[in-house]
């Protein structure tokens, strides 16, 4: 770690060179990885096409579990998206210094994750060709969507989140795209020129941009809370035992941030190494992420505890039975993976040696990702397979089509992220320069 301290950039041009240097023409291994991901994506897409042509029966969903891993993946990806906005918007408002070097990549993660999450309701829909029925427009059927339904809330919330996140990410990049434009030639210069919208960095532009950016961050912040609360209400507004619980909104938001931070660790640790960004994304930043994960892990643990306590305290036999079954029934292995990975895993970060070690950080990141995926599985599938009436209980297992589409979604995410790393500045150039400015005049 000490070597990187010495080579911390000390001037604006050094900062720019380190970051934009990461965009140098990539080697074969990079293109190999991109093509691999592309294959995964195409495989997933073709499985989806197969499902559309053949019918939903190829997926494992059936009575009583009508919501299977498509919805698990939906919630998983929306969750991942939230911590990107937490880092880029909320930490900006809180003036947390450590956010600067990772905000751009985190925000990119958000945009891609929301895009993928938005696909899953379509995939789950069955009759995908009538998706437009949820859009409120005057139609021959004389029908409007039911604004009381949490699914319509979802539609509004996710589309708002996608719009706001992508615009926030793009606007944040304008000065950097201008920098790229100024140091490129030919076609590259044209393209970056178009995308930078002619940004010149005049004081008038900075004046409006600065105020607007603060306002963007102020808008993105309540979205972090509200979007995942809306997603949680897809479940909590039902009366399914194990779902109908008032704690779902904060519980899901904390869980989303927890899984998202884990994904940030999983992505950023290889990225900083492969792109040579170690002087800018230092271990202190990663340590701060680890410490935040201890907090979110504790909140998630608290929620597990409270749900169990209230299930007993309420005296509601259905609720209590569902929770016993979660721990000891058919899906018990998934349940215990969930508890150990989500709660015990991050507690390792209480030890300083672990939270400053890159390998451990990466490993715990993966562990928490797995745990959080299983948490959504246990909540969604676990509750639906064991509701009120015993003869309606049933077991669900995902089919190969569902698993392939899931693989496709992960490939798509990696594909987009790899492209991001090489074509767009992965760290915010002008914000890092501002760091130098405030830490001793450059």
């Amino acid at each position, binding site marked *: 770690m000490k070597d990187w301290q010495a080579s911390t950039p000390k001037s604006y041009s050094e900062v720019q060179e380190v970051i934009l240097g990461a965009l140098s023409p990539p080697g074969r291994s990079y293109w190999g990885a991109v093509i691999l991901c592309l294959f995964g994506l195409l495989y997933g897409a073709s499985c989806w096409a197969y499902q559309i042509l053949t019918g939903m029966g190829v997926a494992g969903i059936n009575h009583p579990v009508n919501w299977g891993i498509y919805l698990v993946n939906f919630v998983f990806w929306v969750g991942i998206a939230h911590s990107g906005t937490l880092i880029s918007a909320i930490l900006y*408002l*809180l*003036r*947390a210094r450590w956010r600067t070097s990772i905000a751009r990549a985190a925000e990119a993660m958000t945009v891609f994750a929301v895009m993928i999450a938005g696909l899953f309701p379509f995939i789950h829909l069955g009759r995908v060709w009538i998706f437009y029925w949820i859009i409120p427009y005057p139609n021959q059927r004389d029908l409007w969507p039911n604004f009381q339904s949490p699914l319509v809330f979802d539609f509004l919330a996710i589309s708002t989140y996608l719009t706001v996140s992508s615009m926030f990410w793009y606007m944040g990049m304008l000065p950097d795209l201008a920098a790229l434009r100024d140091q490129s030639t030919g076609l590259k210069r044209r393209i970056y020129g178009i995308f930078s919208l002619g940004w010149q960095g005049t004081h008038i532009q900075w004046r409006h941009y600065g105020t607007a950016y603060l306002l963007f961050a102020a808008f993105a912040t*309540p979205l972090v*809370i*509200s979007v995942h*609360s809306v997603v949680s*209400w897809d479940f*909590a*507004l*039902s*009366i399914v035992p194990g779902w*109908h*619980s*008032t*704690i*779902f*909104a*904060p519980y899901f938001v904390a869980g989303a941030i927890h899984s998202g931070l884990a994904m940030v660790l999983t992505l950023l640790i290889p990225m900083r190494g492969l792109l040579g960004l170690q002087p800018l994304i230092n271990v202190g930043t990663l340590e701060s992420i680890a410490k935040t994960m201890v907090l979110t892990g*504790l909140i998630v643990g*608290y*929620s597990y505890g*409270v*749900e169990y306590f*209230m299930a007993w*305290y*309420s*005296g*509601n036999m259905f609720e209590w039975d569902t929770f016993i079954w979660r721990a000891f029934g058919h899906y018990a292995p998934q349940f215990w993976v969930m508890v150990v990975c989500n709660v015990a895993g991050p507690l390792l970060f209480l030890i300083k040696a672990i939270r400053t070690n890159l390998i451990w950080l990466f490993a715990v990141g993966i562990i928490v990702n797995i745990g959080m995926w299983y948490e959504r599985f246990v909540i969604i599938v676990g509750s639906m397979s064991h509701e009120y009436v015993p003869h309606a209980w049933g077991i669900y297992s995902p089919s190969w089509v569902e698993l392939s589409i899931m693989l496709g979604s992960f490939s798509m995410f990696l594909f987009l992220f790899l492209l991001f790393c090489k074509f767009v500045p992965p760290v915010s150039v002008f914000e890092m320069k501002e760091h130098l400015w405030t830490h001793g005049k450059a």
Partner: protein
Amino acid sequence: MKLLPLAGIVLGAASFLLGIRGEDPSRAWGSYLVNLVFWMGICMGSVTWVAIMNMTNASWGRPLKRLAEAQVATMPFLWILVALLYAGHRSLYIWSTHPVHGKERWLEADFLFGRDLLVIGAMTLVSYFLVHQSVRADEEKLLGGDETSVRLRWRRQILLSPVLGILYGVGMSVLAWDLIMSLDPHWVSTLFGGYYFMGGLYSALAWLAVLSFLFHRREGIQGKIDGSVFHDLGKLLFAFCLVTGDFFYSQFLVIWYGNIPEETKYVILRVKTEPWNSVAWVVLAGAFGIPFVALLSRKLKMSPPLLGATALVVLGGMWLERFLLVVPSVGARGQIPLGWAEVGVAVGFLSLEIMCFGWFMERVPWLPVGDPLFEKRWGSLSGDPLEVGGHLPGSNKGGKVRG
């Protein structure tokens, strides 16, 4: 001046005792409980704010540290008051006279009060240690003490802060379930504990804003609580207004939507039926509506009197909110029990807090000079702790200096 809080306490005690000897003791116990849970939220929440600011390395709020820590002085009295609450458990809690099937052993007076006193005791002790380290560090620094000792005290504060944070979250949840939720033992809300402790943090922050307004011009603060600190305080208050409102709405929406009678009974009583629905609207406006709109304005946040006034509205709203949680479930009522007796008890609790606050502030330096985050931003101050400490009206100027 010093006698005023004492008079207030006597008034409160008298109102309360008159109430329990009257025809409806549960009404008096109800107002006792309301004030108790309100002030517990503020006091525990205040010291938890110190812990939170320590853990997040927040340097903006350092001048507010002592004002927030001062609430630790009231905690032992709150412990005593919860112990005294035991005497009224038959008037308040239906499960004491009619044990609830399935929960007999959990909702049983000795066990319940035992665990609650344990929880409050633990929070009080950890808060005391945290504040003790903080105050000692400042005193040592001012007397030109050993740097390593000062730094060690800071390390101890860093270690104690997360402990307090966890204790607060879990402890306040248990208190909420036991003291408030069990008033209607068939009603359950998984978010209730969270709602109570977030509301406590919100009220504590509003109380801190009021204290900052009252003390920011005093010599002891040396002008360190300036416009930018108020601005940040206002922004945080706004954020917590949204968070508490969100927690309220999460409970409300889920219960409204599911429409399950065991759950809706509690909410309908408070929001739809006479006479409580009007109180509910006042709470909505005072605790959430007015602060939300007011705190949007930058000018208001930076103006100490305006921020202080908004914070007072928040405190009033949150007091009424606790009132609305507790009182409808305490005995059958046709009228809102808000009379002179209730005012008296409320004044009593407020006076207790003021008295403890005053006692504490007279004995400590008012600026956290031994805190490295304070030092980093404002440099070091030195001198006689009590000169830096400032003086409260009516206290003797000499004072004691601990060696």
